């Protein structure tokens, strides 16, 4: 999909408000935020600025108290919790900061895990195992890694396997929560390059969260939490 196709929004957020009932100090209010289809967006913000809460809302873990969250023009905050879970597995690949993998499962099983929950993504692939191996190859993971236990991999390798898992079955949206924070600078750049190339191949939109401004040049657009959220006391 062309990036210039600005009419199609992968994420569209309007007047979303959220706060934890027991954490009265923290309140999130986002008047407007949108991400175009195929865009690579970096969401910058200090810790405590609400980045992770925003991601939880987009992923459907949380439901906003008011406002609209649309993914691929589908309003998700009206869906039941079960449907939001299903929607997430069909449409979103998620990469955490670290410890992304089930340590006791091998690499292939970890990569194929989302397909177990999403018929839609599983239907996109004819041969699951081969696809997983080929993604691993593109991510320059050593060949013998695929049958190893996740706990036996280095942190860098684990993060690449996490990318492979997020991208299997070509979900429209990939959300990464500071995936490079546990990597050194060289590894960060290699990781980002590999992730970008894979995201491009699968035509996915990427929303990555970081507090590291130096990564900005790699992205199509940078959104600062300070500019999208309204401070509420």
């Amino acid at each position: 999909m062309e990036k210039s196709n600005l009419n199609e929004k992968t994420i569209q957020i309007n007047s979303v408000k959220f706060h934890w009932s027991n954490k009265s100090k923290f309140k999130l209010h986002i008047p407007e935020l949108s991400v175009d289809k195929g865009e690579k967006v970096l969401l910058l913000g200090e810790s405590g600025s609400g980045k992770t809460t925003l991601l939880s809302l987009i992923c459907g873990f949380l439901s906003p108290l008011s406002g609209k969250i649309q993914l691929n023009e589908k309003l998700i905050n009206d869906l039941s919790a079960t449907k939001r879970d299903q929607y997430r597995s069909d449409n979103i690949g998620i990469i955490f900061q670290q410890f992304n993998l089930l340590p006791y499962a091998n690499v292939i099983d970890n990569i194929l895990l989302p397909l177990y929950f999403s018929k839609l993504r599983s239907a996109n692939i004819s041969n699951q195992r081969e696809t997983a191996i080929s993604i691993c190859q593109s991510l320059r993971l050593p060949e013998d890694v695929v049958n190893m236990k996740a706990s036996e991999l280095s942190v860098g390798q684990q993060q690449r396997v996490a990318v492979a898992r997020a991208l299997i079955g070509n979900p429209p949206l990939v959300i990464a929560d500071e995936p490079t924070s546990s990597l050194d600078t060289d590894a960060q750049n290699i990781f980002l390059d590999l992730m970008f190339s894979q995201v491009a191949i699968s035509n996915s939109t990427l929303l990555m969260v970081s507090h590291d401004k130096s990564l900005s040049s790699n992205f199509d657009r940078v959104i600062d939490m300070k500019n999208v959220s309204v401070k509420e006391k």
Partner: protein
Amino acid sequence: MLLKLTFNSLYARLLTVAMTVFAISLSLMLYMSVEKLRTSAYTSFTDTISQTDLIVGARTSSVQLLLYSVFRIGNATNNITWESYEDVINKKEVAWSVPISLGDSHKGFRVMGTNSEFFKRYKFRGGQSIELEQGKNLDDLYDVIIGAGVAEKLNYSVGTPLIVSHGLQSFSDHDDQPFRVSGILAKTGTPVDNTVIVSLEAIEAIHVDWSTGAKIPGQITPVEEIRQMDLSPKNITAALIGVNSKLQIFQLQRWINDYPEESLSSILPGVALQELWRIVGVVENLLLGISVTVIFTTLIGMTAIIFSSLNERRREMAIWRAMGASPKVVIGLLMLEAFIISVMSIIVSTVMLFLTLYVLQPWIDNTYGILVNIEMLAVKDIYIFMLFIIAASLVSLIPAIRAYWFSINDGMTIKI
């Protein structure tokens, strides 16, 4: 795939899981052993005497008659005369009878006078006969046959001389008429093991110089003279009776109970055994209570173990959720885990139980006279296993629901 991953997950925590399975298996095994012992004790108890239709004695309660005639506990209230006994056994319904004469002892073991019919007719464990392990039958007037327990505890062998004491706790011995062990019976697991058996004539013989429970002062009849005397029994304590047809049991029982010449009681051993077990059976309820407590403790233990693993597995739950697993799947995973652990525990405990029984069965039989049957699992056991699995899955709901709330609230923010 979920099943495979659950197994992988359990395997990754092999040590903890193995310890859990082992702990639960031990508890389950304890439960099953207690159950086995309980049922075996009951069977052994009710099998103390079989194929005897009626026991006849002087007028008394059925439990008391059973206690002194079969278990040799307590004393007979009275004897019955040989004439009454003959009247009973001359009834056409009676197929066979074994007279029993009790009252004397040897070093704490009861001495029982009887005839050769006893060895033919006394059956236990559903029809097993008593057998001589060593030596021979009562040929001589002063021969005794001793039970396996007597031989073992007193370290007697064939040929050992012994003196019978008068009464049960008496200091006066029938030392003028020494006996000799002629045979030793094989172990039966019944009170016969602790009995010294002599002939009815021998009982008469040792009381020749006695009158109304006391030795006649100065009177010592020489053994040679006694051997020439008529030693036909004048009294017996009780008799075991077999009838020709089971249909006649009640008719004969009524006749005996209404016997006008003497006050007699006749009891059905099976019924009396049940009655007695109801008294002894308090222990049974106690064992059952212990069993249930053990199972309950086990379940709590398993829940605690799953609980303690929850925090370290919070991240794992978050990964499942990120993949699209609903909180219900998270609950399901934990319940599946509890299910697998309980099934494995059942298998391990069953194997352990059978191995233990296989090793200990001869010892239990020899020491306590309880024959523990090594048989395949009964329907009741399988029923209990299923109940355990269901209970285990249900109690695992407690940590699972906690995991449910974790996974709902954690979302993207994963606390380690």
